[in-house]
C-alpha cells in the first residue's frame, strides 16, 4: 500500500498553491506555549559554562519498562464476491483510517508481449495514466491534486495493475478519474515519445548496473535469450492502443 505521489507541477497556478501550502503550515502552527524569549543580550563572559544536566526524576523512570508479550498476529479476513458485471472482488477491511486503496489486476504483463515487441505492455500501461482525451498530462495531474487522489497504471512481468489511492471522502471523484482514464485514455503521441525516450535512457543506465545485469541473466535462464532484448523504440501509438 502506498501513498499518493504527484509528478512535478508545471504552471504558476500550482506554484501559487505551493506558496499557499507553505503558508498553510505557518498559519496552522500551534501557538507557542512556552514563555517568550528575552530580547536582552546575555552578560559578557570569558568562558561559557556548561549548563548543569538535569535528569528527569519521575518515579516511573527508575526502571526500564518490562516488555509485554508479543501481540498476537491477527490476519485480516478476505471477503470474496462477484459484482453484477462479473468483476471478481477481494475485499479486506481495516477501518482505523478513512483511506481506500483499490487495485484492479489484469492477467497480462511482460510475458504477454509479442516476440517482436518486447516492452509493449509496460509502455502501454505507462501511457495509460498520462491523461485522458479530455485532460492532458498536466491537467490530469491537477485533477488528481484537486482531490488528493492517485490514479496509476503499471505492468509487471505476469500481471498488470491499475491502482487508486484516496481518502474515503474523495473516493467518488477518484473512481470517476479512473473510469475516464480506462474508457477514454489520452494516448498522445508526445507522451509516447517521452516515455520511450525515458525508457531508452533507463535501459542504458541498466546496462552498467550490476543488479539489472543479473536480472537480465536470470530472465535469460528462465525465458530464453530473446527475453533480454528490448524494443522500446518499436511500439507505436497504434500498437499501444
Amino acid at each position, binding site marked *: *500500500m502506498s*501513498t*499518493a505521489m504527484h509528478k*512535478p*507541477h*508545471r*504552471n*504558476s*497556478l500550482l*506554484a*501559487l*498553491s*505551493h*506558496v*499557499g*501550502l*507553505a*503558508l*498553510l*503550515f*505557518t*498559519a*496552522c*502552527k*500551534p501557538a*507557542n*506555549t*512556552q514563555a517568550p*524569549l528575552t530580547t536582552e543580550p546575555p552578560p559578557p563572559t570569558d568562558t561559557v559554562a556548561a549548563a548543569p544536566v538535569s535528569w528527569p526524576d519521575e518515579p516511573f523512570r527508575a526502571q526500564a519498562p518490562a516488555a509485554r508479550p508479543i501481540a498476537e498476529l491477527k490476519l485480516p479476513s478476505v471477503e470474496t464476491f462477484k459484482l453484477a458485471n462479473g468483476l471478481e472482488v477481494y475485499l479486506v477491511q481495516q477501518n482505523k*483510517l*478513512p*483511506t481506500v486503496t483499490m487495485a484492479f489486476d489484469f492477467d497480462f504483463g511482460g510475458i504477454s508481449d509479442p516476440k517482436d515487441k518486447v516492452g509493449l505492455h509496460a509502455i502501454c500501461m505507462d501511457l495509460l495514466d498520462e491523461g485522458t482525451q479530455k485532460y492532458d498530462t498536466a491537467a490530469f495531474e491537477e485533477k488528481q*491534486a*484537486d*482531490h*488528493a487522489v492517485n490514479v496509476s497504471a503499471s505492468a509487471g512481468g505476469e500481471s498488470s495493475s491499475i491502482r487508486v*489511492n484516496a*481518502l474515503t471522502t*474523495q473516493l467518488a471523484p477518484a473512481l470517476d478519474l479512473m473510469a475516464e482514464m480506462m474508457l477514454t485514455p489520452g494516448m498522445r503521441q508526445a507522451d509516447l515519445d517521452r516515455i520511450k525516450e525515458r525508457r531508452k535512457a533507463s535501459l542504458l543506465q541498466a546496462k552498467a548496473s550490476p543488479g539489472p545485469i543479473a536480472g537480465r541473466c536470470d530472465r535469460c535462464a528462465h525465458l530464453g535469450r530473446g527475453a533480454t532484448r528490448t524494443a522500446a523504440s518499436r511500439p507505436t501509438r497504434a500498437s499501444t492502443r
Partner: protein
Amino acid sequence: VLDERSAQSVSVYNAGAQHSSIFHIVVDLKPGQDPAKAEAVIARELDKIRKQPVTDAELARVLIGTESSFIWGLEDLMGRVEQLQSFNHYTGDPGYAQTYLQRLRALTPAKVQATAAQILGAHRAEIITRPAPGTSAGGPAGKPAPAPAAAPKAATKG
C-alpha cells in the same frame, strides 16, 4: 519560471520550528538563465500573494492535500508514533490530531493572505549557488558564471 521554461524545478516550503521557522523558495535555473529574472518573477508572485487572496479552489486543493498526507502518514506504526510525539512536544497534547484538522479546515484565503503579508516581507536572505568554474555547468575554467543583476542581500530578520 516553469512556464517560461527558465527553471528546472521550483519548490516552496516552510521549515517549521518552535522558535525560528524558515520559509524557503528554491529555484533551480537551467544553464545560462539569468538569476535576476527569476528573482523578479519570485518578487512578483510574493507581491501577488500579499495583496490578493488565493482562490478558493487553490486553497481547497492545498487543504485536501495536506489532510490527505497527514492521514496517510498515520498508516504505519512508526508514523503514528512520530505524530503522537510531535504533537506532545509542540502542544503538550499527544491527542492533538482532531484539533489540528479543525484548525486546518478553518483556514480561509483571507487568513493565508494575512499570514503572507505578515511574514513574506522585504527582509529576507537570498542565497545564490553557482556551479564552480571549470565544471561542465560552470563554464570554462577561470571564467565564472556571470554575476546576477541583484547582489545577494544580507540575512536579516523578517
